[in-house]
């Protein structure tokens, strides 16, 4: 579509592909929030790229009428990084599951965060491998019985927000897909953040984690206290690895030079000496 006709309503971001998600899946909330966030921010569809890995959650780009890349399991972040660095004008959003981002893709999460790449990374955390039918993932609570952990999950569960902070992400927040309004708000701030913004959205899998979890979560969700200082790493970590409650909001937000800032500095330094083609060839010439 050409942008002049574009009305920036959530509906216009809907593609004509029907989601394959199970009825009641938390990911619907994430998708609807994204439509609204993109509309509110008036993101041009042609300038927006949504990149995902593989998983139920990673099907999302297909449902959004922007440029999209449903890539490989665990590899959304390198692809998003390449797209953003090469084409800085684009609005690049990476999305995917907990398994995608913390199991197979964990290394890229670390390095994208520490480099402060200028993208928003939205994790749809259902504490399980949804698409492959219910095996434990890195956020599955210890002790839980799943398809691959018949006798209870032996591994310690990871809190993605805690991880993101320790990796050096400059903006870290938690949302709940059952709360569309709150999620829209956090998505918008994630997209607007300069640098690597990590938004973990609790997005229950009704099929492999049970229908009741969703309801249970509604009761647990609480907003951050008003006096929370998102500039404090220490305060932020206080809202990670929570047991009985799920705190939503911007846990952590600071400003550091982004990877694009750094690349800009490098280009500025580099271009102090000239670089025509003959300058390049001179490197190889006997200059005496």
């Amino acid at each position, binding site marked *: *579509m050409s942008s002049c006709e574009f009305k920036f309503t959530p509906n216009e971001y809907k593609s004509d592909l029907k989601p394959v998600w199970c009825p009641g899946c938390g990911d619907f909330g994430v998708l609807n929030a994204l439509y609204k966030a993109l509309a509110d921010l008036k993101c041009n*569809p042609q300038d927006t790229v949504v990149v995902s890995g593989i998983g139920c959650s990673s099907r999302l780009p297909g449902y959004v009428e922007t440029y999209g890349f449903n890539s490989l399991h665990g590899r959304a972040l390198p692809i998003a*990084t390449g*797209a953003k660095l090469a*084409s800085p004008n*684009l609005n690049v959003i990476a999305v995917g599951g907990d398994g995608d981002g913390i199991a197979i893709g964990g290394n890229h999460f670390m390095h994208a965060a520490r480099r402060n790449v200028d993208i928003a990374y939205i994790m749809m955390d259902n504490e399980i491998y949804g698409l492959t039918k219910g095996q434990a993932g890195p956020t599955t609570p210890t002790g839980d019985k799943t398809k691959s952990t018949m006798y209870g999950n032996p591994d310690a569960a990871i809190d993605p927000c805690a991880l993101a902070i320790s990796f050096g992400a400059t903006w870290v927040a938690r949302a709940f897909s059952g709360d569309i309004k709150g999620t829209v708000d956090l998505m918008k701030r994630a997209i607007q953040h300069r640098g690597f913004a990590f938004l973990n959205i609790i997005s229950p899998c009704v099929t492999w984690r049970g229908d009741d979890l969703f309801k249970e979560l509604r009761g647990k969700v609480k907003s951050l206290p008003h006096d929370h200082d998102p500039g404090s790493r220490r305060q932020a970590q206080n809202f990670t690895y929570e047991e009985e409650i799920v705190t939503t909001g911007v846990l952590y937000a600071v400003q550091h030079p982004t990877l694009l800032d750094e690349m800009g500095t*490098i280009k500025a330094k580099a271009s102090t*000496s000239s*670089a025509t083609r003959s300058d390049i060839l001179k490197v190889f010439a*006997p200059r005496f």
Partner: protein
Amino acid sequence: MTQELTLSIVGSGGDGAVAAGDILSMACAREGLNVIKTEAYGPQIRGGESSATVRISTAPIYSQADALDALVVFNWADYARFRNELTPAPDAVVFYEEKDPPPAGLNARFFPIAFANAARDAGAPNGKNVLALGVLSAAFGLPQDALRAALRARFGKKTAAVVEGNIKAFDRGIEIGNEVAGSVKKFAYEKKAPKLVMSGNEASAVAAIDAGCRFFAGYPITPSSEILHFLSEWLPKIGGTCLQTEDELAALGAVVGASFSGVKSMTATSGPGLSLMAEMLGLSSMAEVPSVIVNVQRGGPSTGIPTKSEQSDLMHALFASHGDTPRAVIACSDVEDTYHATVDAFNIAEEFQMPVIVLSEQSIAQRRETISGDNLVHDVIDRQLANPEELKEFRRYRVTENGVSPMSVPGMAGGEYQTNGLEHDEQGRPNSMFVTHETMNAKRYRKLDALASKYRLFHRFGPETADLGIICWGSTAGVVREAVERLNQGDLRVAAFAPRMIMPLPVADLEKFIASCGELLVIELSYSKQFYQYLRTQVDLPKKTRVYARSGGKALGVSEIIEQCVAEVLA
């Protein structure tokens, strides 16, 4: 008549053998001579044995030499490691540190020289390499002015005392060399236009820039890191971006992302990295996102022999990644060819929307060679973007006759689409129906047919019909070319065929070649005969075809090939 000379200098880390080789190469390049310079190292990370070998010729040359005309040895213990690689010719001249007498069994003319003392006395305590250059220049008549200029350029940033000390050491070397000069054959040449001195890796990097590459992502690995180094310096100067990633999965991932966003992009690696890229290569193919991967082969399998050459990544490059995954594979036979192969790779990637692997080899990637800057010219094809007509009801993966579909990139209104590693329909939407799958497989493979008819790239050497035909690829082509030239000076008529396009192979041309030859000999540096196996998938090789395949780790020699050819014909 062609004049040729091959010199080798061997020493320990601090002896400056490699620096001497560089200086000599640059001086010869200034004189317009043809040079191929190779280096070799022992296992020590630093300070171990090292050697530099410089082959100089008045005529074009395509391979390193088999045998040395002259050898400088500062230390015979260091030489021991290279004994199998650095063989003096029967009438060779050997200059050695007089304190260290040569071992028995070497057949050459020996000249002891007090390298260390003489250099120190000349005022260059670290200058025995420079002194050796003086000796060699005097003995063989190499360009002394150019060498002196090269020395000054090399040491230009040091103190005047250092520069002068080295010049004195060089002059002292000349005096010493003059003493033996009478007894050796002189190298006579006419000065020509200066040449560039470049390695295969540098040629890849320059070619990438020329081809329009503005994004590079890579992870260091021997013997390809020089591409990363060069581009990390030069891309930012021209507005491009160079990213060192956390691993090779991320490197190719970033390249695919950057290319998807509309920028020509490349990565470079060696075997272990290419293995790690197998899955992402498949995505580039399936999503039809152009990507260029330079893979510099080294000894395998596994970590293998990182510093030595081999041609054993071939089958992996051709067939890695699960599923039916079309890709193009292009070979390099020397430094200049590496330049053209790399630009071709970009052209093919952009035109046919697929991953293209440039298969280089340590032996050409890290050797330095003279080339004429005028030859570094190659047409560039830019990405063709969907036109307004195509953007109406845009189908990114439209089924077309040659399989190439209209492409949009982010920023283009109306071109929005989702790409996908899942099988998909013309719009890019996931689709698991058999008909779609068969249709799309066919579409993707038709691109290879179109590519095959457009890019029938190969080298062919020797007469139009021949008693013996050699089929080879990559760096081996250079050695074979010289062997063929030599053999055809005798009774035997030998021709050679070396595809530059490996996938898709120029089958018709190869078949014509096969038909034009009597006997057939396939030559390659892979123990398991990977090239031979691949050839068999594409053409029917006559029953009598013989294969000469061995492990890498040692350069293939012209005489080794000649021996094989003679054996083949006598057999």
